[in-house]
């Protein structure tokens, strides 16, 4: 996660949190930005070459286990970290496969959007990650009609990773519990400092204590947090 901000005359903007969606070998990072409110609308106006404030990398990313298949559940722009993760995982398994002759650990990507209009370019997605996503749209305009959570299956051994709007996370947590799946979630909470000083970004821990999502998260093992019942 990075904080992306702006310092311009006449503008005040707290940095907004963004997942790392892409990384180049020479150290550049790519963020996937979707306009949601005022801040992202302003950030979306950045032109190539313009300067912005970037703070990070911050917090803890998804933790994959070598060799263990992953199943990514992406709601909307929650796709961002999985582009990065899938690219890394396929690259790693390709390396492994090349060196050890092993079969690549599989990456399944469930990707849901409201409708076709919001969909991330599938060709680009495949190019970046080598993965073909299983699509879900609420209106069925592309892929399966319904919520992305409907793609989560029983008793799969793969590590479940979820990123998306909080109601989606709640649904995934419930399903993972029912189906006995290991789950990591990337939570969305407002942030200010991004580095653990302001205590602005807390989420409720399973033990009742508040946990700072900017340093302890944004990715948590689902069992670390308290969820609505």
């Amino acid at each position, binding site marked *: 996660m990075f904080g992306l901000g702006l310092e311009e005359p006449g503008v005040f903007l*707290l940095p907004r949190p963004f997942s790392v969606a892409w990384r180049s070998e020479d150290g550049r990072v790519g963020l996937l930005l979707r306009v949601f409110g005022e801040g992202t609308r302003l950030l979306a106006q950045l032109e190539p070459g313009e300067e912005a404030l970037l703070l990070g990398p911050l917090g803890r990313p998804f933790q994959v286990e070598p060799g263990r298949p992953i199943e990514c559940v992406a709601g909307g722009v929650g796709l961002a970290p999985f582009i990065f993760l899938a690219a890394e995982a396929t690259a790693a398994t390709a390396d492994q496969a090349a060196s050890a002759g092993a079969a690549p650990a599989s990456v399944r990507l469930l990707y849901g959007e409201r409708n076709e209009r919001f969909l991330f370019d599938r060709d680009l997605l495949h190019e970046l990650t080598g993965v073909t996503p299983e699509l879900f749209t609420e209106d069925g305009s592309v892929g399966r009609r319904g919520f992305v959570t409907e793609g989560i299956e029983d008793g799969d051994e793969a590590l479940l990773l979820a990123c998306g709007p909080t109601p989606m996370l709640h649904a995934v947590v419930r399903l993972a519990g029912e189906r006995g799946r290991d789950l990591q979630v990337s939570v969305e909470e*407002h942030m200010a400092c*991004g580095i*653990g000083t302001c*205590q602005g970004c*807390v989420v409720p821990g399973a033990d009742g204590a*508040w946990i700072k999502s900017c340093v302890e998260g944004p990715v948590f093992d689902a069992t670390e947090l308290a969820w609505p019942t």
Partner: protein
Amino acid sequence: MADLTQPLFGVEFHSPVLLASGTCGYGPEYAELIPLDRIGGLVTKAVSVEPRVGNPPHRVAETPGGMINAIGLENVGLERFIAEKLPWLSENLTRAHVFVNVVGYMSDDFAAVVAGLDGEEGFLGYEINVSCPNVKGGTMFGTDEVALADLVKQLRAETQRPLVVKLTPNVADVGVFARICEESGADGLSAINTFPGMLIDVERRRPVIGNRTGGVSGPAILPMGVYSTWRARAACDLPIMGIGGIRNGTDAMQYILAGACLVQVGTASFVDPDAAVRVHEGIASYLDDHGLPTLTELVGALEDEGISGLPS
């Protein structure tokens, strides 16, 4: 290069810029990002006798030109502050001075924190946060003339260290409260704390902030902070730390000309962790550009007599 050194509170401040309470934790996180000893110091997150868990989320949100927060004074409490936080401050800072921000539900709570800390190392003095409800009186300490006077006198009896009271702007005349602090034995003032505010999520028809209301900070309150500093300066002779919306040297110079000898940077650090260092450098450039050798002569050096009615 201009000399920003000032003798204040019995020590030397080589820079007039501090990090504001609640925006820099207890120090270590910013120390990884900026050279803390290049600035004048920091004010810790509020410390109360007992630990506080704080408020439910959302605890922060952006507002036009600023932000609102309701952290709920979450802190580790006196005991763990001494055991876990003070040692870092005492070991890692050399030129940067530390004020401990103190809160309580009643005056005895404040006194207990001051008494408990007074013999420790690693900090210079106290910043008393009176923008909190007085459980006994039902009002806020910072808006109740009698409660404030009593509190300051009680704390004065507990310590010889610099005792700074952080004023709330939430009063008819901040000057009245500045004078009360001076008369009750305070050594300095901080002006100002946040403004009470509220944001509503019109889709959910609920307050955005978990605590419903919070404190507004950031550039939006800059003119109010400068005003409060100017009022406090006119009302008493205590040294003043100017706070509210400071992002650069020009903002800081407004506070300094209005009467602040030190300034604190809060919200601006969230936008850019370098903000406080830039403020320091901006003040130094101002002096250099104007051929002024020292900062002291600029404190309160506002020329506000004989303002003409002519366009200028």
